[in-house]
């Protein structure tokens, strides 16, 4: 009897202790951050969420999966670094031996969707926040711009892709068509261009945010890719007529530190000197930086003899594009890398490669970390001028085309009357080739050459000898891991 009472007593005490505290005792909230249900809920959250979409563009994987494979796939650059470095991972992009499990594909693919998700967070959640309407609209437009930018990269790289426009996509999605994907890109950019402010209405601390000019310029690029020349002309000229932009007097500054957020910059990726993406650095330029002495990076993306030999005589842009050994830049002598031959020849004695580096990612400074402060230009004014020229020429307006083409040449000439004379021909086909070459020399090593070759149909002729197969290499393979995870709901591109 006594035992029973005691047992009951103890059970009662335990019960008393347990039951009321139970629910609370077993509740362990997320530590250090919020759950997605509780973000974004305020005006300041909306700003954080909008800023985060931009962060994606500074991620290493955003830059075509880390390595500058777009230039490497073109005739302008080879893999770079020393001969064995990443030979089997990056090397195959150089000769179109790309497989479905090729290194970097899944990184690029996944990173684009990270950006798309962040844009979707803004597009879906910010309208629910009660806040200043003008600011709210601007945030939404910024997110639309960036989502359009990401999908445009994807549709060029892979063709039609699964279209995600909400923060809660279904577990199974299949690929949309290329047309549907372009339609989304266009819709996003048109929304952005009609809602974004002009560059000069941003305060100086907000430079780097998407602008109406950036959206117009990107639209021009998209229409050009789609061979819709009237629209390409329209949007390129909108940028020009906005009076927001001009060419840097010095070509070097178009990509260099002095031109960071300068008049020529239409959209760029801000970064600071920090050897880590989390800390504000951007590894894009470190990946391509001079290898050896001075030690500025890994030395990938080496300009080819084909590129260096193609410049017009005396074109100062050659020096602005290629760093050669023994050059002195900002007081630093380029000695180069001991594990990389100065000259590489094929068995027939032809020069395949000369040790040199991409000048456009050079950042003055004293250490490797300085490279991480490079601001990658995603759109610059010279490109817009050349897009305008190209579209005008296709729209049978060579005279106006020449105006913009010669603006670019004049800046490159930098007051030296002996070089880069003004172009005067009004023959559409002649001018087409001239503008195309001008794009190569003005924009070399900035990641556009491969798409220019594809969109103009010149890739088979130019890249065929390098291994390009028409009907296959217009697109990259869908990463095998994504196909595996989708259990076959994602289909592979032809030829892979």
């Amino acid at each position, binding site marked *: 009897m*006594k035992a029973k009472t*005691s*047992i009951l007593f*103890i059970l009662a005490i335990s019960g008393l202790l347990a039951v009321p505290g*139970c*629910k609370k*005792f*077993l*509740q*362990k909230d*997320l*530590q250090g*951050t919020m*759950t997605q249900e509780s*973000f*974004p809920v305020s005006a300041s959250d909306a700003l*954080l*969420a909008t*800023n*985060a979409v931009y*962060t994606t563009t*500074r991620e290493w*994987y955003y830059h075509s999966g880390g390595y500058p494979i777009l230039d490497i796939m073109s005739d302008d650059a080879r893999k770079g670094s020393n001969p*064995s*470095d990443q*030979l*089997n991972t990056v090397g195959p992009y150089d000769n179109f*031996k790309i497989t479905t499990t090729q*290194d970097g594909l*899944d990184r690029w693919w*996944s990173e684009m969707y*990270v950006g798309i998700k*962040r844009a*979707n967070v803004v597009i879906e959640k910010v309208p629910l926040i009660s806040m200043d309407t003008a600011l709210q609209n601007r945030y939404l437009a910024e997110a639309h711009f960036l989502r359009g930018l990401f999908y445009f990269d994807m549709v060029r790289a892979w063709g039609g892709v*699964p279209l*995600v426009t909400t*923060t809660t996509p279904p*577990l199974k999605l299949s690929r949309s068509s290329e047309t549907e994907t372009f339609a989304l890109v266009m819709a996003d950019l048109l929304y952005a261009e009609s809602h974004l402010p002009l560059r000069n209405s941003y305060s100086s*601390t*907000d430079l780097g945010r998407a602008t109406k000019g950036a959206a117009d310029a990107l639209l021009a690029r998209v229409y050009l890719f789609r061979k819709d020349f009237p629209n390409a002309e329209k949007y390129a000229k909108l940028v020009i007529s906005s009076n927001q932009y001009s060419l840097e007097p010095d070509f070097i500054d178009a990509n260099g530190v002095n031109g960071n*957020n300068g008049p020529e910059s239409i959209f760029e*990726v*801000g970064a*600071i*000197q920090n050897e880590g993406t989390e*800390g*504000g650095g951007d590894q894009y330029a470190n990946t391509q930086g001079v*290898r*050896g002495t001075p*030690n500025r990076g890994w030395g990938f993306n080496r300009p080819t003899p084909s590129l260096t030999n193609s410049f017009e005589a005396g074109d100062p842009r050659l020096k602005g594009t290629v760093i050669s050994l023994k050059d002195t830049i900002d007081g630093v002598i380029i000695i*180069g*890398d001991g*594990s990389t031959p100065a000259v590489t020849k094929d068995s027939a004695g032809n020069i395949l490669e000369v040790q040199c580096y991409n000048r456009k990612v050079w950042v003055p400074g004293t250490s*490797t*970390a300085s490279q991480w402060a490079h601001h990658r230009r995603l759109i610059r004014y010279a490109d817009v001028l050349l897009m305008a020229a190209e579209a005008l020429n296709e729209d049978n307006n060579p005279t106006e085309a020449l105006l913009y083409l010669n603006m670019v040449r004049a800046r490159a000439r930098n007051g030296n009357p002996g070089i880069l004379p003004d172009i005067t021909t009004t023959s559409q086909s002649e001018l087409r080739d001239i503008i195309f070459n001008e794009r190569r020399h003005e924009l070399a090593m900035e990641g556009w050459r491969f798409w220019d070759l594809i969109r103009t149909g010149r890739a088979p002729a130019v890249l065929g000898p390098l291994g390009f197969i028409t009907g296959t290499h217009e697109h990259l393979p869908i990463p*095998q891991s994504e196909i*595996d*995870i*989708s*259990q076959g709901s994602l289909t592979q591109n032809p030829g892979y």
Partner: protein
Amino acid sequence: MIKSFTLLQKVVSKRAIVSVILLLSVTSIAFAQVRTVKGTVTASDSRETLPGTTVRLKDSPTGTVTDIDGKYSIQVKQDKAILVFSFIGYTTQEIEVKTQKILDVVLEPAKISLQEVVVVGYGTLRKSDLTGSVGSLKSEDITKITALDPVQSLQGKVAGVQVASLSGTPGESPMVLIRGVGTFNNSSPIYVVDGNILDDISFLNSADIKSMEVLKDASATAMYGSRGANGVIIVTTKSGSAVEGKTTFSVTGEYGLQSVVKDIKLLNGHDFAVIANRISPGTYNNVDAVSSTDWQKLIFHVAPVYNFQVSATGASKAVQYYLGLGYFKQDGIIDKSNYQRFTVKFDNTFNLAPWFKFGTNITLTPFSQQIAPDVTYQAYRAIPTIAPYYSNGQFAALDGVGNPLADLENSNNFRKGVRGVGNMFAELTFLKSITLKSSIGIDGEYDKAESFTPKFTVFEPNGSPSQQYNQYPTLSKAWSDNLTWLWENTISYVKDIKKHSVNAVVGYTMQNTTSESVGLTGKNIIRDGPNYWYINPNYIYDAANGVNTISSIYNSVNPDQYYSMISFLGRINYTFDRRYILTVTFRGDGSSKFIQQNRWGYFPSVAAGWNITSEKFMKNISFLSNLKLRASWGQVGNDKIPYTGRYSQVDNSLITIFGATSSSNPAASYGLLGNPNLKWEVTSQTDIGLETGFLNNRLTGEFDFYYKKTDNILVPLSIPGYFGNGAGQQEWFNAASILNRGFEFNVSWKDKIGQLKYGLGFLGTINHNEVLSIGGNSGVDSVLLGGYLGNGIPVTRSKVGLPVGAFYGYETDGIFQTQAELNAYPHMSGAGVGDLRFVDVNHDGKIDGKDRTFIGSPIPTFIFGFNLDLEYKGFDFSVNIQGQTGNKIFNAKDAVRPDPYNFETNVMSGWYAAGTSYTEPRASYGGYNYIPSDRFIQDGSFVRIRNLILGYTLPQKLSTKICMQKLRFYLKVDNLYTFSKFTGYSPEIGSSNVLSSGIDNGGYPITALYAFGINISM
């Protein structure tokens, strides 16, 4: 005030007086009746004396032990005292002492060791009443292996248990699996150390452990409910001796030397030059003139292990105590790697009254460790024609590999901390059969990691810097702490009424675990020495630029160590007539890891046993001393997921750079996706066991069949990239089932021939592992990729019908001998003459990803151990052999080649012209032939001489002269030799990730140990 004070005084003094009177009367009685009883204890079967028999006065802590001649002498204080004589393996006898002064006793061997008690969850059971499958290891076997982590001693000693080292890194704990891989996530068992539920026991000194019991079937593990599915290892540490008497001291000292068991056969300089010329003619002009560096020799050396301990144990009338002190130090066979640990253990039990006792049991373990960089893999890859140093004494550059000696020299990576595990309990017994127990356990650890890398550069031969450099002197520090408290309250009831025996327990427990870690990195440390390894703002903040340009900081909880739990539990064990046994257990667990609707899990089990030898009809079968049949079924759970699994998180650590001055702007957005629907994974297990004993239990055997199916497995699955989680990110799902079924046996024979005592034991497990489903209705991958190599390519694919973590790749079928042959067969575009011929598995006329197939299982199908013990006069000798068959190893260290590296010697027999090889492809630095294929699969079967000990104990007559009860010297060897075809350091390749097991990434090799030691007790 004054009034009450005096009242109190009165009460106190009154009580005091009464107590004193009582005390005096008790002592006077005691003094009056004291006398001495002497005698000899012998065994009825051997007719020899039984030294070490416990002789105890019933219902009193007073007792003694027979000496070497079986003689005892005890003080008896009453006329009618009862003496209890007990010796393991013999039936305990109680004899009433009347007036005689000499009492000789003959003990009968126990037909079944009825009194042998087994520790189970929340109590103990007579072994004869046990219905679950439990394997035990006693202290003498636990100390045989010299290892930091006592769990190493289970290897080859308990059927159903697989122990495999992850690497030879000093301080690293091994992987432990009980009855196969039952899940896709953490498959480690839990450890219950004197009631504290823990994840590992590396803080315990083997010498402080009394026994380890491995709970294997559901009847045994269901008491641990949601945490029992991977098995439970109950560790009982030593406590004070049960009998009053003098303090016993024991001292052990051991010194040993470790060395690499074997080197990997890599090319020397000459052979490498030959191969290099084969790959790229003209690389070396004169292959006989190249230098040759044996990089393995440069990084490995012989290293010592020290192991010392002292313990004292004893008991007085009211207190039983044990005090243990231990010191363990292991230097690594690679420079700058070592581990040292102190252990301090106190265990005290205070018997305050016959019905009340309380106790404390505390282990404090300060430790420190130095961790070397992964130079083993560098040595494997390093080109042998390069000398380690230039003529000027500087480190030579090794492009793509890094000079391992430079990395070693610049490494200063330390970890130190202290772990304290302890509990305090109070126990109240009334009506002789009911015990209330409440205990509070604490497990706390504080840890500090510190790493300093000076500024250095390794230069190319032409003087330009190589990629092996560190630009700023860098100091990283991290601190972490975690604290768990566990409050357990149980009521147990143990009663024998005629033919009915009941052993029951009910309980209520609460547990809370918290943790936190902080880390920061500073650069530009002003000087290199350890005196300067402190971080100040200059090191983390670049004032000149006004930004935190050179630092990183993190601070978070450890997601695996942040949860709380409330549990209700109960067990009833009922035995009728010692013949029929029924056990029913139940546990309900509420865990913070799941949302409220999924929070509670309920875990039942039932089991029955039948002691056939206790039946009347068995009486005449004299050769059969024990026959017991048992069967059990039950469900147990696994909740080993990070607490964050259910939360979809916001990543608020982002920044974006805007503005004319490039300033940092905070940013935040959706981060990792969580799954709120998560719940327990549940393992249902059926076990049928047979225990046998023949010829007075000289031959014993235990056999178990088990069928263990795990459903709703918590598994991180890759989700499509379009979810925007980033490359390689995964989400937790309850989405898989795994089956493990098998057979375990443990047979032993013990006997003696004249003065030679011997014992033989053979045990093993045959296990079948199979994935029954993956993905379920969650719609994501139906296969689970894992075993990611250094180049990001997965080489395991867990798929329905195959074992967990099955190897996946191309099957090969010879070498393309000629261009004609190449043209005739389907091949990848990268294939050439002399390359591997991959099999067109799906017969679609081309070789692509769809032709990858199952190429081997990393899971052994048979694990076994063999033990031999011999004793002759003062000598003792024991051998433990252990091994496994049926598993394969993926030689990943050979398969990942982004740059040109050295080769294993098999490359010498490679193809170089038609007909030169049909198995080994032409030499190449990387590319096509290194695509994961069965070329990298090797047989993982092995037989290892795990442990060999030869000891000599001085005759007691001699040792007592130097005041020692026992003095023993021994020589031992661990991992003496391994019979195996595997080309790597060791075929025993553990992995903390079940999807990556059996993959040899070329880590720190495990070693052989040759040691000498002394045991003293006095």
